[in-house]
């Protein structure tokens, strides 16, 4: 596998009059001595095309870094070099190994984002090619590239499919056009879970078509292509929703999962709740807002960083929370009971 990655990388770089050693020349030691340097990106995953760029991840001891990429151009090839502190990388690995964030009792947006970024980081290392490393990191990278990560990615996408599925069914009452997007995302996540089981772990869904082809999932590829269209008229939206939902239900065992999952609603970032003379104002960034007839019973500070409402997977939220969700005032998570 390593040799195949190297040949692929060499071939791609040669089209830009570069060799792998040129990538190493972009690595600076101003952030600390590199512990491990990998080339990663869609090219290393086997999908990239001539317009693809290349990412170089550099792990250093320094923990005071941003992930702002340092961009350079070699023979027309864009190379983004990113630096990560070793502590951060090890913590990300630990987080992913400990199991999906959906297994937490409470899943806030902050935790979701933290886990997602950790998972994304690990999948980049999984698909990356080692350009150089200190001896103590040889084994570390090898043990990242194994099936434990594949099952974590598959698990992630399965839960996410459930989350989008739930959103789609809540939204269809008031916004069928948007619900169609949600149900398609539920399908894309479900398909991503399937290909992850076969080792296709990179997260971006734009490569889902290539991953499905690589896994020879002919039927699933057709589902994907059908879902990529967007229904325009009301009639088309109803048919689309029904068709795509049936695909999701074929892929995700919701009959089984529904008994172990619950949903939680949180205030979205920027939300504020104010009450004035019996009218409740739920606003976001002091710009968009929803006016409710009655006080929803939350004081100024009570709604911050806590679950506003929750229920078993197929339970509907109370109308007021459903409305707030449909107006993008509430953030949805799905957790295992």
């Amino acid at each position: 596998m390593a040799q195949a990655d190297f040949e692929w990388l060499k071939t791609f770089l040669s089209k830009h009059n570069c060799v792998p050693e040129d990538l190493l020349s972009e690595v600076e030691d101003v952030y600390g001595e590199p512990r491990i340097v990998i080339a990663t990106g869609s090219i290393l995953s086997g999908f990239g095309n001539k317009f693809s760029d290349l990412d170089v991840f550099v792990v250093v001891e320094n923990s005071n870094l941003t992930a702002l990429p340092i961009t350079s151009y070699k023979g027309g090839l864009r190379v983004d070099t990113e630096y990560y502190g070793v502590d951060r990388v090890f913590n990300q690995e630990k987080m992913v190994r400990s199991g999906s964030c959906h297994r937490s009792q409470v899943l806030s947006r902050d935790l979701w984002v933290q886990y997602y970024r950790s998972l994304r980081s690990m999948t980049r290392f999984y698909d990356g090619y080692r350009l150089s490393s200190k001896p103590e990191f040889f084994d570390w990278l090898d043990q990242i590239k194994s099936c434990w990560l594949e099952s974590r990615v598959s698990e992630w996408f399965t839960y996410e499919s459930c989350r989008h599925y739930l959103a789609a069914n809540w939204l269809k009452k008031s916004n069928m056009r948007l619900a169609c997007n949600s149900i398609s995302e539920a399908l894309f996540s479900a398909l991503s879970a399937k290909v992850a089981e076969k080792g296709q772990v990179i997260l971006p869904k734009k490569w889902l078509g290539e991953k499905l082809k690589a896994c020879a999932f002919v039927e699933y590829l057709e589902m994907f292509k059908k879902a990529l269209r967007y229904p325009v008229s009301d009639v088309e939206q109803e048919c689309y929703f029904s068709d795509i939902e049936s695909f999701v239900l074929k892929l995700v065992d919701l009959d089984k999962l529904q008994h172990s999952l619950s949903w939680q609603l949180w205030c979205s970032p920027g939300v504020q709740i104010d009450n004035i003379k019996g009218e409740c104002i739920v606003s976001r960034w002091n710009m968009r807002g929803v006016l409710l007839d009655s006080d929803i019973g939350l004081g100024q500070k009570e709604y911050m960083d806590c679950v506003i409402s929750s229920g078993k997977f197929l339970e509907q939220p109370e109308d007021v929370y459903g409305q707030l969700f449909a107006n993008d005032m509430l953030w949805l998570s799905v957790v295992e009971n």
Partner: protein
Amino acid sequence: MLLKTSFTVWGNFDMNTVCDIRRHIALRTQGAFRLLVGIQGFLEDVEGGISARQEELVLYQVRQIVLKSLSIHSLALGGELMDQKEQDQVNFDYFLGLDKDIVEKGLKLINRFADCYEPKEKLLEELRAFVDQAEDVLGFSEKLYVLRSPQGFASVLRLAKSWEELAKSKNLPSALPDEWVL
């Protein structure tokens, strides 16, 4: 909703008034970054995918381009400031406040790519025009830099610094990708 009036005062000096300054700033900062960090890269993917005959990559990214372009129009008309950066939101409404015509124009363009009856290169030009229409909504006098170009990244970083300070002064969310600051 932005209300702009233009009239001549004090000789040749033109002035626009807006009734919602915070939304005006949010449109220009958030809207610009939806283009710079999202749409510009997606367009490159479409070009590369057409060249490499990666049909599903093309379709997926066309869909993302149209939805994000519509969200820029929506941002000018009362839509949500904070767009999906990492698919954490499952209820972000790309269409909020939009006329049926522009929505249908965008969605039909997605489907024309999927139908494969027309040459992709011709459709790509229409897609670019759709993106340009969204960029026009931002109201800048010049086209935005191309972020993913040798000069573009540095130029955008300089702009971003001043925009961030402005947005912060108005208690608006940051438009920058979190990775740029964390």
